[in-house]
Protein backbone atom coordinates (compact mmCIF):
# COMPACT_ATOMS: atom_id res chain seq x y z
CA UNK A 1 0.00 0.00 0.00
CA UNK A 2 2.94 2.30 0.70
CA UNK A 3 3.88 2.00 -2.89
CA UNK A 4 0.47 3.21 -4.10
CA UNK A 5 0.62 6.36 -2.00
CA UNK A 6 4.16 7.17 -3.13
CA UNK A 7 5.23 10.38 -4.77
CA UNK A 8 7.04 8.27 -7.32
CA UNK A 9 3.84 6.86 -8.76
CA UNK A 10 2.03 10.17 -8.66
CA UNK A 11 4.89 11.80 -10.52
CA UNK A 12 4.94 9.01 -13.10
CA UNK A 13 1.21 9.44 -13.62
CA UNK A 14 1.54 13.20 -14.08
CA UNK A 15 4.39 12.84 -16.55
CA UNK A 16 2.46 10.29 -18.57
CA UNK A 17 -0.64 12.49 -18.41
CA UNK A 18 1.27 15.45 -19.80
CA UNK A 19 2.47 13.36 -22.75
CA UNK A 20 -0.97 11.93 -23.41
CA UNK A 21 -2.57 15.36 -23.23
CA UNK A 22 -0.16 16.76 -25.74
CA UNK A 23 -0.43 13.83 -28.14
CA UNK A 24 -4.21 13.75 -27.91
CA UNK A 25 -4.64 17.49 -28.46
CA UNK A 26 -3.34 17.44 -32.00
CA UNK A 27 -5.42 14.43 -32.89
CA UNK A 28 -8.50 15.93 -31.27
CA UNK A 29 -8.13 19.23 -33.10
CA UNK A 30 -8.07 17.62 -36.52
CA UNK A 31 -10.86 15.19 -35.72
CA UNK A 32 -13.01 17.81 -34.05
CA UNK A 33 -12.71 20.32 -36.85
CA UNK A 34 -12.84 18.07 -39.87
CA UNK A 35 -13.88 14.58 -38.74
CA UNK A 36 -10.59 13.23 -40.04
CA UNK A 37 -9.05 10.35 -38.13
CA UNK A 38 -5.34 10.92 -38.28
CA UNK A 39 -4.00 7.43 -37.63
CA UNK A 40 -0.56 8.72 -38.62
CA UNK A 41 -0.43 10.96 -35.56
CA UNK A 42 1.97 8.74 -33.62
CA UNK A 43 4.20 8.41 -36.66
CA UNK A 44 4.42 12.18 -36.90
CA UNK A 45 5.61 12.06 -33.30
CA UNK A 46 8.37 9.69 -34.32
CA UNK A 47 9.32 12.12 -37.06
CA UNK A 48 9.66 14.86 -34.45
CA UNK A 49 11.59 12.42 -32.26
CA UNK A 50 14.04 11.55 -35.03
CA UNK A 51 14.52 15.21 -35.78
CA UNK A 52 15.52 15.94 -32.20
CA UNK A 53 17.65 12.80 -32.05
CA UNK A 54 19.68 13.77 -35.12
CA UNK A 55 20.02 17.38 -34.15
CA UNK A 56 21.40 16.22 -30.81
CA UNK A 57 23.72 13.65 -32.36
CA UNK A 58 25.00 15.84 -35.18
CA UNK A 59 25.26 19.30 -33.64
CA UNK A 60 24.78 18.59 -29.96
CA UNK A 61 21.75 20.82 -29.54
CA UNK A 62 19.14 19.40 -27.17
CA UNK A 63 15.39 19.10 -27.70
CA UNK A 64 14.70 22.19 -25.60
CA UNK A 65 15.80 24.07 -28.73
CA UNK A 66 15.29 21.52 -31.46
CA UNK A 67 11.63 21.09 -30.47
CA UNK A 68 10.89 24.33 -32.31
CA UNK A 69 12.41 22.83 -35.43
CA UNK A 70 10.40 19.65 -34.93
CA UNK A 71 7.20 21.70 -34.66
CA UNK A 72 8.08 23.62 -37.79
CA UNK A 73 8.94 20.46 -39.74
CA UNK A 74 5.71 18.67 -38.86
CA UNK A 75 3.61 21.81 -39.27
CA UNK A 76 4.94 22.25 -42.81
CA UNK A 77 4.13 18.61 -43.44
CA UNK A 78 0.62 19.29 -42.12
CA UNK A 79 0.19 22.18 -44.52
CA UNK A 80 1.46 20.05 -47.40
CA UNK A 81 -0.87 17.20 -46.49
CA UNK A 82 -3.88 19.51 -46.26
CA UNK A 83 -3.16 21.45 -49.42
CA UNK A 84 -2.25 18.44 -51.55
CA UNK A 85 -4.80 15.81 -50.50
CA UNK A 86 -7.31 16.80 -47.85
CA UNK A 87 -8.54 19.98 -49.46
CA UNK A 88 -9.20 18.10 -52.66
CA UNK A 89 -11.10 15.34 -50.85
CA UNK A 90 -13.23 17.81 -48.90
CA UNK A 91 -14.01 19.79 -52.03
CA UNK A 92 -15.16 16.79 -54.01
CA UNK A 93 -18.83 16.03 -53.35
CA UNK A 94 -18.61 12.27 -53.76
CA UNK A 95 -15.40 11.87 -51.79
CA UNK A 96 -16.55 14.23 -49.05
CA UNK A 97 -19.61 12.07 -48.41
CA UNK A 98 -17.29 9.29 -47.23
CA UNK A 99 -14.79 11.64 -45.66
CA UNK A 100 -14.43 9.98 -42.28
CA UNK A 101 -13.83 6.53 -43.78
CA UNK A 102 -11.61 7.92 -46.53
CA UNK A 103 -9.53 9.82 -44.00
CA UNK A 104 -8.62 6.51 -42.36
CA UNK A 105 -7.27 5.23 -45.65
CA UNK A 106 -5.43 8.46 -46.46
CA UNK A 107 -3.73 8.66 -43.09
CA UNK A 108 -3.07 4.95 -42.96
CA UNK A 109 -1.18 5.36 -46.21
CA UNK A 110 0.54 8.38 -44.78
CA UNK A 111 1.56 6.36 -41.71
CA UNK A 112 3.04 3.58 -43.83
CA UNK A 113 5.02 6.09 -45.87
CA UNK A 114 6.43 7.76 -42.76
CA UNK A 115 7.26 4.45 -41.05
CA UNK A 116 9.02 2.96 -44.02
CA UNK A 117 10.64 6.23 -45.00
CA UNK A 118 12.16 6.49 -41.53
CA UNK A 119 13.13 2.85 -41.62
CA UNK A 120 14.89 3.23 -44.97
CA UNK A 121 16.65 6.42 -43.97
CA UNK A 122 17.70 5.55 -40.43
CA UNK A 123 17.33 1.73 -40.23
CA UNK A 124 14.95 0.27 -37.70
CA UNK A 125 17.43 0.44 -34.81
CA UNK A 126 15.94 2.02 -31.71
CA UNK A 127 17.55 5.40 -31.08
CA UNK A 128 18.02 7.18 -27.82
CA UNK A 129 20.36 9.72 -26.32
CA UNK A 130 21.22 11.02 -22.90
CA UNK A 131 20.14 14.56 -22.24
CA UNK A 132 19.23 16.22 -18.94
CA UNK A 133 19.53 12.81 -17.34
CA UNK A 134 20.79 13.81 -13.94
CA UNK A 135 18.59 12.44 -11.20
CA UNK A 136 16.71 14.71 -8.87
CA UNK A 137 14.99 14.01 -5.60
CA UNK A 138 11.41 15.25 -5.46
CA UNK A 139 10.12 14.54 -1.98
CA UNK A 140 10.87 10.87 -1.46
CA UNK A 141 10.81 10.19 -5.18
CA UNK A 142 13.71 10.14 -7.60
CA UNK A 143 13.22 11.35 -11.11
CA UNK A 144 15.36 12.27 -14.09
CA UNK A 145 15.48 15.91 -14.99
CA UNK A 146 14.39 15.20 -18.59
CA UNK A 147 11.16 13.62 -17.34
CA UNK A 148 10.43 16.75 -15.35
CA UNK A 149 11.14 18.77 -18.49
CA UNK A 150 8.58 16.66 -20.36
CA UNK A 151 6.07 17.27 -17.58
CA UNK A 152 6.67 21.01 -17.52
CA UNK A 153 6.82 21.65 -21.24
CA UNK A 154 4.00 19.23 -22.02
CA UNK A 155 1.75 20.90 -19.48
CA UNK A 156 2.59 24.40 -20.66
CA UNK A 157 2.07 23.49 -24.32
CA UNK A 158 -1.23 21.72 -23.67
CA UNK A 159 -2.57 24.46 -21.44
CA UNK A 160 -1.40 27.11 -23.89
CA UNK A 161 -3.12 25.34 -26.74
CA UNK A 162 -6.40 24.94 -24.85
CA UNK A 163 -6.35 28.58 -23.72
CA UNK A 164 -5.53 29.71 -27.23
CA UNK A 165 -8.55 27.89 -28.62
CA UNK A 166 -10.71 29.16 -25.78
CA UNK A 167 -9.85 32.82 -26.01
CA UNK A 168 -8.28 33.78 -29.34
CA UNK A 169 -10.18 34.90 -32.40
CA UNK A 170 -8.82 31.98 -34.38
CA UNK A 171 -9.89 29.66 -31.58
CA UNK A 172 -13.37 31.12 -31.53
CA UNK A 173 -13.66 30.59 -35.28
CA UNK A 174 -12.40 27.02 -34.98
CA UNK A 175 -14.89 26.19 -32.26
CA UNK A 176 -17.66 27.72 -34.34
CA UNK A 177 -16.60 25.59 -37.30
CA UNK A 178 -16.60 22.45 -35.13
CA UNK A 179 -20.21 23.08 -34.10
CA UNK A 180 -21.88 24.26 -37.27
CA UNK A 181 -20.07 24.47 -40.59
CA UNK A 182 -22.77 26.33 -42.52
CA UNK A 183 -23.38 28.81 -39.74
CA UNK A 184 -19.63 29.39 -39.48
CA UNK A 185 -19.45 30.50 -43.10
CA UNK A 186 -22.56 32.63 -42.47
CA UNK A 187 -20.71 34.70 -39.88
CA UNK A 188 -17.76 35.19 -42.22
CA UNK A 189 -15.41 32.37 -41.22
CA UNK A 190 -13.17 31.06 -43.98
CA UNK A 191 -13.29 27.31 -43.30
CA UNK A 192 -10.43 26.58 -45.71
CA UNK A 193 -8.01 28.83 -43.86
CA UNK A 194 -9.05 27.55 -40.44
CA UNK A 195 -8.59 23.97 -41.63
CA UNK A 196 -5.14 24.70 -42.98
CA UNK A 197 -4.11 26.24 -39.67
CA UNK A 198 -5.65 23.39 -37.71
CA UNK A 199 -3.59 20.94 -39.76
CA UNK A 200 -0.43 22.92 -39.05
CA UNK A 201 -1.17 23.14 -35.33
CA UNK A 202 -2.34 19.53 -35.06
CA UNK A 203 0.69 18.11 -36.87
CA UNK A 204 2.98 20.54 -35.07
CA UNK A 205 1.73 19.33 -31.70
CA UNK A 206 2.61 15.78 -32.71
CA UNK A 207 6.10 16.92 -33.66
CA UNK A 208 6.48 18.69 -30.34
CA UNK A 209 5.30 15.64 -28.41
CA UNK A 210 7.74 13.43 -30.31
CA UNK A 211 10.62 15.80 -29.70
CA UNK A 212 9.91 15.86 -25.96
CA UNK A 213 9.37 12.13 -25.68
CA UNK A 214 12.66 11.43 -27.47
CA UNK A 215 14.46 12.68 -24.33
CA UNK A 216 13.05 9.85 -22.24
CA UNK A 217 12.06 7.05 -24.60
CA UNK A 218 13.69 5.33 -27.53
CA UNK A 219 12.65 6.39 -31.00
CA UNK A 220 11.97 3.75 -33.66
CA UNK A 221 10.37 3.98 -37.11
CA UNK A 222 7.42 1.87 -35.96
CA UNK A 223 7.15 3.24 -32.43
CA UNK A 224 4.36 5.69 -33.12
CA UNK A 225 1.38 3.39 -33.27
CA UNK A 226 0.99 2.83 -29.50
CA UNK A 227 0.84 6.60 -29.08
CA UNK A 228 -1.86 6.84 -31.71
CA UNK A 229 -3.91 4.24 -29.85
CA UNK A 230 -3.43 5.92 -26.48
CA UNK A 231 -4.39 9.25 -28.00
CA UNK A 232 -7.57 7.75 -29.42
CA UNK A 233 -8.51 6.34 -26.02
CA UNK A 234 -7.83 9.73 -24.45
CA UNK A 235 -10.01 11.70 -26.82
CA UNK A 236 -12.80 9.16 -26.66
CA UNK A 237 -12.62 9.36 -22.87
CA UNK A 238 -12.84 13.14 -22.96
CA UNK A 239 -15.29 13.45 -25.82
CA UNK A 240 -14.30 13.71 -29.48
CA UNK A 241 -13.53 17.28 -30.43
CA UNK A 242 -13.65 18.48 -26.83
CA UNK A 243 -10.19 19.90 -26.11
CA UNK A 244 -10.70 20.44 -22.39
CA UNK A 245 -12.21 16.98 -22.11
CA UNK A 246 -9.09 15.58 -23.77
CA UNK A 247 -6.91 16.97 -20.97
CA UNK A 248 -9.17 15.30 -18.40
CA UNK A 249 -9.09 12.10 -20.43
CA UNK A 250 -5.28 12.18 -20.50
CA UNK A 251 -5.05 12.54 -16.73
CA UNK A 252 -7.56 9.75 -16.19
CA UNK A 253 -5.92 7.34 -18.59
CA UNK A 254 -2.48 8.02 -17.12
CA UNK A 255 -3.75 7.39 -13.60
CA UNK A 256 -5.52 4.20 -14.63
CA UNK A 257 -2.46 2.99 -16.48
CA UNK A 258 0.19 3.81 -13.88
CA UNK A 259 -1.78 2.78 -10.82
CA UNK A 260 -3.36 -0.17 -12.58
CA UNK A 261 0.03 -1.54 -13.55
CA UNK A 262 1.37 -0.88 -10.04
CA UNK A 263 -1.51 -2.83 -8.53
CA UNK A 264 -1.32 -5.70 -11.00
CA UNK A 265 1.63 -6.14 -13.33
CA UNK A 266 3.04 -4.59 -16.46
CA UNK A 267 1.49 -7.44 -18.41
CA UNK A 268 -1.91 -5.92 -17.78
CA UNK A 269 -1.12 -2.58 -19.39
CA UNK A 270 -2.81 -3.32 -22.71
CA UNK A 271 -5.76 -4.96 -21.00
CA UNK A 272 -6.27 -1.86 -18.88
CA UNK A 273 -5.92 0.48 -21.84
CA UNK A 274 -8.36 -1.37 -24.10
CA UNK A 275 -10.58 -2.22 -21.16
CA UNK A 276 -11.07 1.47 -20.43
CA UNK A 277 -11.59 2.11 -24.12
CA UNK A 278 -14.32 -0.50 -24.52
CA UNK A 279 -15.99 0.36 -21.22
CA UNK A 280 -16.29 4.01 -22.18
CA UNK A 281 -17.62 3.12 -25.62
CA UNK A 282 -20.24 0.88 -24.03
CA UNK A 283 -21.35 3.10 -21.17
CA UNK A 284 -20.71 6.63 -22.37
CA UNK A 285 -19.86 6.70 -26.08
CA UNK A 286 -20.00 10.49 -26.23
CA UNK A 287 -17.12 10.71 -23.70
CA UNK A 288 -17.03 11.94 -20.13
CA UNK A 289 -17.49 15.59 -21.01
CA UNK A 290 -19.16 15.08 -24.37
CA UNK A 291 -22.82 15.63 -24.98
CA UNK A 292 -24.91 13.05 -26.75
CA UNK A 293 -24.89 13.18 -30.54
CA UNK A 294 -26.74 16.06 -32.10
Amino acid at each position, binding site marked *: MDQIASTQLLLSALILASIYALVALGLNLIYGTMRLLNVAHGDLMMLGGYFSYWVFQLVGIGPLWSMFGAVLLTAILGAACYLSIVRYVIGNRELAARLEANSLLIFFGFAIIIQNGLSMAFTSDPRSYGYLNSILAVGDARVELNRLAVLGLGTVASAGCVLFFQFSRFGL*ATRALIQQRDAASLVGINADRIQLLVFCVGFGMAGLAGSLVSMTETVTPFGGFPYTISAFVVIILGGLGNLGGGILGAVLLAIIEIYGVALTSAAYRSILLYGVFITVLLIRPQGLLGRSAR
Partner: protein
Amino acid sequence: MSNLLEATDINAGYGEMQILKHVNFVIREGAITAVIGSNGAGKTTLMRALSGLIALQSGAIHFDGQMIGKLPAYERLDIGLALVPEGRLVFPDFTVHETLRVGAFARRAHAGWKARRDQMYALFPRLLQRRSSRAGSLSGGEQQMLALARGLMSMPKLLLLDEPSLGLAPMMADEVFSQLRAIRDQGITICIVEQNVQAALGLADYGYVFEDGQVRMEGPAADLLGLGSIRESYLGL
Protein backbone atom coordinates in the same frame (compact mmCIF):
# COMPACT_ATOMS: atom_id res chain seq x y z
CA MET B 1 -35.32 53.62 -54.13
CA SER B 2 -32.40 51.88 -55.78
CA ASN B 3 -31.87 48.16 -56.02
CA LEU B 4 -29.55 46.80 -53.36
CA LEU B 5 -29.52 43.30 -54.85
CA GLU B 6 -30.28 42.12 -58.34
CA ALA B 7 -30.31 38.47 -59.35
CA THR B 8 -30.46 37.99 -63.10
CA ASP B 9 -31.55 34.74 -64.70
CA ILE B 10 -30.12 32.56 -61.95
CA ASN B 11 -30.19 28.77 -61.99
CA ALA B 12 -29.19 26.90 -58.87
CA GLY B 13 -29.68 23.59 -57.11
CA TYR B 14 -27.90 20.68 -55.50
CA GLY B 15 -25.54 18.61 -57.62
CA GLU B 16 -27.36 17.51 -60.75
CA MET B 17 -30.71 18.66 -59.42
CA GLN B 18 -31.86 22.07 -60.54
CA ILE B 19 -34.22 23.88 -58.19
CA LEU B 20 -34.18 27.53 -59.22
CA LYS B 21 -35.03 28.01 -62.88
CA HIS B 22 -34.26 31.32 -64.59
CA VAL B 23 -35.10 33.44 -61.57
CA ASN B 24 -35.01 37.23 -61.80
CA PHE B 25 -35.18 38.79 -58.42
CA VAL B 26 -34.70 42.29 -57.02
CA ILE B 27 -34.37 43.63 -53.48
CA ARG B 28 -34.92 47.35 -53.08
CA GLU B 29 -32.80 49.29 -50.65
CA GLY B 30 -34.47 50.16 -47.37
CA ALA B 31 -37.54 48.02 -48.04
CA ILE B 32 -38.78 44.71 -46.74
CA THR B 33 -39.15 42.14 -49.51
CA ALA B 34 -41.17 39.00 -48.84
CA VAL B 35 -40.82 35.67 -50.65
CA ILE B 36 -43.76 33.31 -50.31
CA GLY B 37 -44.69 30.01 -51.85
CA SER B 38 -45.51 26.45 -50.92
CA ASN B 39 -43.01 23.91 -49.61
CA GLY B 40 -40.48 22.94 -52.23
CA ALA B 41 -41.01 26.10 -54.27
CA GLY B 42 -37.31 26.95 -54.00
CA LYS B 43 -37.47 29.71 -51.41
CA THR B 44 -34.75 28.28 -49.20
CA THR B 45 -32.62 27.46 -52.23
CA LEU B 46 -32.93 31.11 -53.26
CA MET B 47 -31.68 32.22 -49.84
CA ARG B 48 -28.81 29.74 -49.95
CA ALA B 49 -27.84 30.93 -53.41
CA LEU B 50 -28.00 34.62 -52.48
CA SER B 51 -25.89 34.04 -49.37
CA GLY B 52 -23.37 31.85 -51.23
CA LEU B 53 -23.98 28.61 -49.34
CA ILE B 54 -24.61 26.96 -52.70
CA ALA B 55 -22.98 27.89 -55.98
CA LEU B 56 -24.95 29.23 -58.94
CA GLN B 57 -25.24 26.94 -61.95
CA SER B 58 -25.57 30.05 -64.07
CA GLY B 59 -26.76 33.63 -63.89
CA ALA B 60 -25.49 36.71 -62.08
CA ILE B 61 -26.02 38.41 -58.74
CA HIS B 62 -25.22 42.07 -58.23
CA PHE B 63 -25.07 43.43 -54.71
CA ASP B 64 -24.43 47.06 -53.93
CA GLY B 65 -22.84 47.59 -57.35
CA GLN B 66 -20.62 44.50 -57.15
CA MET B 67 -20.77 41.13 -58.93
CA ILE B 68 -21.03 38.57 -56.14
CA GLY B 69 -22.19 35.44 -57.97
CA LYS B 70 -18.87 33.66 -57.44
CA LEU B 71 -17.99 35.11 -54.04
CA PRO B 72 -17.82 32.45 -51.28
CA ALA B 73 -20.34 32.82 -48.45
CA TYR B 74 -17.83 34.01 -45.86
CA GLU B 75 -16.71 36.89 -48.08
CA ARG B 76 -20.27 38.09 -48.63
CA LEU B 77 -20.35 39.04 -44.95
CA ASP B 78 -17.56 41.51 -45.57
CA ILE B 79 -19.66 43.45 -48.05
CA GLY B 80 -22.72 43.48 -45.84
CA LEU B 81 -24.86 40.52 -46.84
CA ALA B 82 -26.02 38.27 -43.99
CA LEU B 83 -28.38 35.29 -43.84
CA VAL B 84 -30.33 34.09 -40.82
CA PRO B 85 -30.73 30.52 -42.03
CA GLU B 86 -33.70 28.21 -41.88
CA GLY B 87 -33.64 26.18 -38.70
CA ARG B 88 -31.56 28.96 -37.13
CA LEU B 89 -28.33 26.91 -37.08
CA VAL B 90 -27.16 28.24 -33.73
CA PHE B 91 -23.77 27.13 -32.39
CA PRO B 92 -25.13 24.79 -29.72
CA ASP B 93 -22.14 24.92 -27.35
CA PHE B 94 -21.57 28.66 -27.52
CA THR B 95 -23.16 30.85 -24.91
CA VAL B 96 -25.34 33.74 -26.06
CA HIS B 97 -22.38 35.96 -25.32
CA GLU B 98 -19.93 33.96 -27.45
CA THR B 99 -22.47 33.73 -30.25
CA LEU B 100 -22.73 37.49 -30.47
CA ARG B 101 -18.96 37.77 -30.41
CA VAL B 102 -18.52 35.33 -33.27
CA GLY B 103 -21.38 37.10 -35.08
CA ALA B 104 -19.05 40.08 -35.43
CA PHE B 105 -16.32 37.93 -37.01
CA ALA B 106 -16.51 39.63 -40.42
CA ARG B 107 -13.88 42.27 -41.06
CA ARG B 108 -16.39 45.09 -41.42
CA ALA B 109 -17.90 44.22 -38.04
CA HIS B 110 -14.73 44.11 -35.86
CA ALA B 111 -14.79 47.64 -34.67
CA GLY B 112 -17.29 48.47 -31.99
CA TRP B 113 -18.63 44.96 -31.55
CA LYS B 114 -19.13 45.44 -27.84
CA ALA B 115 -21.35 48.46 -28.36
CA ARG B 116 -23.32 46.52 -30.95
CA ARG B 117 -23.66 43.59 -28.58
CA ASP B 118 -25.17 45.95 -26.02
CA GLN B 119 -27.58 47.21 -28.70
CA MET B 120 -28.61 43.62 -29.31
CA TYR B 121 -29.27 43.13 -25.62
CA ALA B 122 -31.40 46.28 -25.69
CA LEU B 123 -33.32 45.00 -28.71
CA PHE B 124 -33.68 41.49 -27.27
CA PRO B 125 -33.84 41.81 -23.46
CA ARG B 126 -34.50 38.09 -23.22
CA LEU B 127 -31.02 37.39 -24.60
CA LEU B 128 -29.49 39.58 -21.92
CA GLN B 129 -31.17 37.48 -19.26
CA ARG B 130 -29.77 34.34 -20.82
CA ARG B 131 -26.38 35.63 -21.90
CA SER B 132 -24.44 32.87 -20.14
CA SER B 133 -26.68 30.03 -21.29
CA ARG B 134 -25.67 27.62 -24.02
CA ALA B 135 -27.44 28.40 -27.27
CA GLY B 136 -28.48 24.75 -27.52
CA SER B 137 -30.42 25.05 -24.27
CA LEU B 138 -32.52 28.04 -25.37
CA SER B 139 -36.14 27.75 -26.44
CA GLY B 140 -37.05 27.95 -30.12
CA GLY B 141 -38.06 31.59 -29.85
CA GLU B 142 -34.92 32.52 -27.98
CA GLN B 143 -32.79 30.70 -30.54
CA GLN B 144 -34.52 32.63 -33.32
CA MET B 145 -33.76 35.91 -31.58
CA LEU B 146 -30.18 34.79 -31.10
CA ALA B 147 -29.86 33.90 -34.78
CA LEU B 148 -31.31 37.28 -35.68
CA ALA B 149 -28.95 39.07 -33.31
CA ARG B 150 -26.01 37.06 -34.65
CA GLY B 151 -26.90 38.18 -38.16
CA LEU B 152 -27.18 41.81 -37.06
CA MET B 153 -23.79 41.66 -35.32
CA SER B 154 -22.17 41.49 -38.77
CA MET B 155 -23.51 45.00 -39.58
CA PRO B 156 -25.37 43.89 -42.68
CA LYS B 157 -26.75 46.21 -45.32
CA LEU B 158 -29.05 43.39 -46.33
CA LEU B 159 -30.43 40.82 -43.91
CA LEU B 160 -31.86 37.68 -45.47
CA LEU B 161 -34.25 35.76 -43.22
CA ASP B 162 -35.33 32.21 -43.93
CA GLU B 163 -38.53 31.21 -42.10
CA PRO B 164 -37.93 33.19 -38.91
CA SER B 165 -41.32 32.19 -37.46
CA LEU B 166 -40.97 28.46 -38.13
CA GLY B 167 -41.84 26.43 -35.05
CA LEU B 168 -42.54 29.45 -32.87
CA ALA B 169 -45.60 30.01 -30.73
CA PRO B 170 -47.83 32.72 -32.26
CA MET B 171 -46.95 35.26 -29.58
CA MET B 172 -43.26 34.64 -30.09
CA ALA B 173 -43.66 34.98 -33.85
CA ASP B 174 -45.43 38.33 -33.38
CA GLU B 175 -42.52 39.49 -31.27
CA VAL B 176 -40.04 38.51 -33.97
CA PHE B 177 -42.07 40.34 -36.63
CA SER B 178 -42.27 43.52 -34.59
CA GLN B 179 -38.49 43.37 -34.11
CA LEU B 180 -38.04 43.10 -37.87
CA ARG B 181 -39.89 46.40 -38.21
CA ALA B 182 -37.53 47.97 -35.68
CA ILE B 183 -34.54 46.59 -37.62
CA ARG B 184 -35.86 47.99 -40.91
CA ASP B 185 -36.36 51.36 -39.24
CA GLN B 186 -32.64 51.34 -38.42
CA GLY B 187 -32.00 51.37 -42.15
CA ILE B 188 -31.25 47.69 -42.73
CA THR B 189 -32.80 46.20 -45.86
CA ILE B 190 -34.65 42.95 -45.21
CA CYS B 191 -35.66 40.03 -47.37
CA ILE B 192 -37.83 37.48 -45.66
CA VAL B 193 -38.97 34.00 -46.66
CA GLU B 194 -42.09 32.99 -44.77
CA GLN B 195 -44.72 30.30 -44.41
CA ASN B 196 -46.88 32.78 -42.57
CA VAL B 197 -48.05 34.58 -45.70
CA GLN B 198 -50.42 36.97 -43.96
CA ALA B 199 -47.79 38.21 -41.53
CA ALA B 200 -45.05 38.37 -44.17
CA LEU B 201 -47.06 40.35 -46.71
CA GLY B 202 -48.47 42.50 -43.91
CA LEU B 203 -44.93 43.42 -42.94
CA ALA B 204 -43.39 43.70 -46.40
CA ASP B 205 -43.36 46.44 -49.01
CA TYR B 206 -42.91 44.14 -51.96
CA GLY B 207 -43.56 40.46 -52.49
CA TYR B 208 -42.56 37.55 -54.71
CA VAL B 209 -44.57 34.37 -55.13
CA PHE B 210 -42.45 31.32 -55.96
CA GLU B 211 -43.73 28.15 -57.52
CA ASP B 212 -41.67 25.21 -58.73
CA GLY B 213 -38.44 27.18 -58.63
CA GLN B 214 -39.76 30.08 -60.64
CA VAL B 215 -41.17 33.51 -59.91
CA ARG B 216 -44.89 33.09 -60.41
CA MET B 217 -46.00 36.57 -59.41
CA GLU B 218 -44.56 39.74 -57.99
CA GLY B 219 -45.83 43.10 -56.88
CA PRO B 220 -46.40 45.47 -53.98
CA ALA B 221 -47.20 43.39 -50.92
CA ALA B 222 -50.54 45.09 -50.31
CA ASP B 223 -51.66 44.26 -53.86
CA LEU B 224 -50.63 40.62 -53.49
CA LEU B 225 -52.55 40.37 -50.23
CA GLY B 226 -55.66 41.57 -52.03
CA LEU B 227 -55.43 39.06 -54.87
CA GLY B 228 -58.02 36.31 -54.86
CA SER B 229 -55.59 33.65 -56.03
CA ILE B 230 -53.15 34.39 -53.18
CA ARG B 231 -55.91 34.39 -50.61
CA GLU B 232 -57.12 31.06 -51.89
CA SER B 233 -53.77 29.28 -52.29
CA TYR B 234 -51.87 30.56 -49.29
CA LEU B 235 -54.30 31.98 -46.81
CA GLY B 236 -57.08 29.44 -47.15
CA LEU B 237 -59.72 32.11 -47.45
